[in-house]
């Protein structure tokens, strides 16, 4: 029922937009995961943070691709600084896996997917150029892991400050917090 379909709040810090490229922070497992399309996706060992299902080529549990924190941490990471409509702070630094990387990894074949949060919020992604815009699944904010109380553990985040054209109500609504499931169609 809850939905962040809010128009972009005006207060955005435009200066000091630093895109933090942390892509080198990945281990050997991540390489095999990211680079080898034929490799089998290992099953999760810890608590599952994210489930991807639907039109995907690679799965690890039944017809779903499930990820625990360790698996996500082995993937190439990226980040940026931005203000958000849900905080009065001038800006926060968000880090995580780029959404396009994750979709490539699971071999997603659809162009639409539904993102569902732990609070049962659900919305369908359509027409967002994920190749162009580094939209991420943020798992840290200002270097601290996101918790449920701080709208985590995973949160779809747009680089609003770097791309002011992203500031609109539609993208606000797509910024799903407490993300649990993505269903590709």
């Amino acid at each position, binding site marked *: 029922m809850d939905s962040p379909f809010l128009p972009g709040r005006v207060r955005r810090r435009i200066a000091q937009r630093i895109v933090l490229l942390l892509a080198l922070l990945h281990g050997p497992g991540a390489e095999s995961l990211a680079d080898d399309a034929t490799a089998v996706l290992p099953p999760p060992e810890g608590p599952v943070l994210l489930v991807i299902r639907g039109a995907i080529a690679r799965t690890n549990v039944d017809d779903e691709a499930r990820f625990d924190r360790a698996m996500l941490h082995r993937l190439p990471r990226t980040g940026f600084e931005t203000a958000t409509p849900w905080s009065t702070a001038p800006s926060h630094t968000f880090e995580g896996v780029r959404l396009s990387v994750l979709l490539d990894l699971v071999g997603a074949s659809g162009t639409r997917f539904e993102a569902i949060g732990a*609070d049962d919020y659900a919305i369908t992604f359509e027409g967002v150029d994920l190749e162009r815009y580094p939209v991420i699944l943020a798992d840290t904010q200002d270097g601290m892991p996101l918790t449920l109380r701080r709208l985590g553990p995973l949160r779809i985040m747009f680089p609003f400050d770097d791309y002011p054209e992203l500031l609109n109500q539609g993208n606000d609504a797509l910024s799903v917090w407490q993300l649990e499931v993505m269903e590709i169609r």
Partner: protein
Amino acid sequence: MFIALTSVAAVVCSAVVVYLMVQINRTRLVLQADGVYEFNYIQQNDHNFDEFALALDEWREARRDDPDAPRDFRQRFDIVWSALSLSETQLGPSLRPLPETRALQADGEAFLAKNEPLMEPDAELDDEDLKRMADEARTLSRRVYQIGLTLYLRKGILRDDVAARMDRLTRAFWFFGTTLLLAGLTLYGLLTRAYRRASALVDQSNVTQAQLATALEELTDGDIERRKQNRFIATASHDLRQPLHALGLNLVTLRGHVDTPLGESILENASRSTESLNHLLGSVLDVSRLDAEVIEVKRADLALDEMFEQLHHTWQPEANDRKLAFDVHLSGLAVNTDPVLFGRILGNLVSNALRYTEAGSVLLEAERGTRGGVLVTVADTGQGIPEREREAVFAEYYQMDTTVGARTQGLGLGLSIVHRLARLLDIQLEVQSSVGRGTRFELLLPEGDMGVVERRRSCANSSAFDGVHFDGLKVLVIDDDRDIRDGTLRLLEQRACRVIAADSADEALAAIVDEELVPDLIVADYRLRDDRTGADAIRAVREEVNENVPAMIVTGDTSPARLREASASGFRLLNKPVVPEELFDAIGDLADRGT
């Protein structure tokens, strides 16, 4: 006036339209901001409280069978926590949330704080706690639902209000917008018309300017005509002047050789005619000199009575001839001005007055001006000057179309000379005239010092030239005109001068060498043969005798350029025809200085 009113209307309408736009925009913002965030917040919390209560119930059921059933409600508690804590951005003061929503937020936060210890992993929970928590959560959820309804109604009413307001604003906007448009169009029309009128005026002024330019050109052409005429007269008068000069000199010389009374009488007439001719040529010369601007003003204090008496003496015969009364009133006043030039002015005015008066009288008088100075008046009872000719009479060669047909026609230079001399002497000249009744010229001059006049008079004893003799003064006369040369020679010899006459510088030098003589004085004509000048001749002689011999130049030139040139040579300058007295005066002057 209409333009001003329309402009004011346009400005007022513009202001109103701007005001309306601001109002409409504000309303739009209110509509945009109101409710959306708050409603979203309400919705989220309603769902989260519900789900939390449900999770508690589920766990209570589940643990009856399995004491280690997972405590999922803790996750739901965190979700309630996360959404409720977004109040800062969702219910900011600028969004004007309902007080109920604020109260709910506070109660929700109190609920979370109170129950947080029960969410610890090892917290002991009995059924009572669980039921109480679930009930409280559901109560809060119900309140949220009520708030949602209130919000919905409130926003609905607000929406209606805003809609009505927008309606009014839109109507007003249309009204004032239309008025503004009309005012603008009217203004445009009026301004266009004004512009057209202004353009027409500009065109008209251009035409007038062109006409003026043409008129000016014509006038300038006329000016050129006048100058040509001037040049012609200057040339002619030079040619006339030479024989006249000779004639004057010869007549004076002749006086000593006439024995019979008849001869004397004829000589007298001849002299008078020569004088008259001199006078006419003098006028022309005056104009030439004024044109050349070589006239030097020499101011002095002079007694008007003397001048008046002289004029009386000169013009009484003419007045008698014409059977006119010539009234000269003596005043005992003195004026400060150039005696010679002022004499010319008065002479011209009197001569004119006599010429243009058929019957009656000519009056010459002087009195103190009401605002200082001396007012000299020359008045007649003549035909008068018509208003439209008042300016023209001062032009050169102008002669009134006169039925009187003055017998001694002048050249029409008189008043022009008067006008120009008066300006030169800073004399205020005013004319009052009425046709058929007469003309009155008034001259305002600065008053002179009578004391100075008296003193000078006592110093200068009779300056008659009859007794003037220059004993043995050696005078070199250079003139290429034989008659003048001989005339001058005889005149000077009568006065006991020793004269050497030469027709050129060369002849003069030859004579000096032959007779081994150094002249005391040189009198040279300005224009000599072969483009030589008297100045050149004087310098040549001076070089030969190696002495700075006093010298004077006599010239018959009347052309402004020539006069200026002769004047520039720096020698004492006499204009032909030279009256013998003038010549003697100059000779005496120079000889004194020489010795």
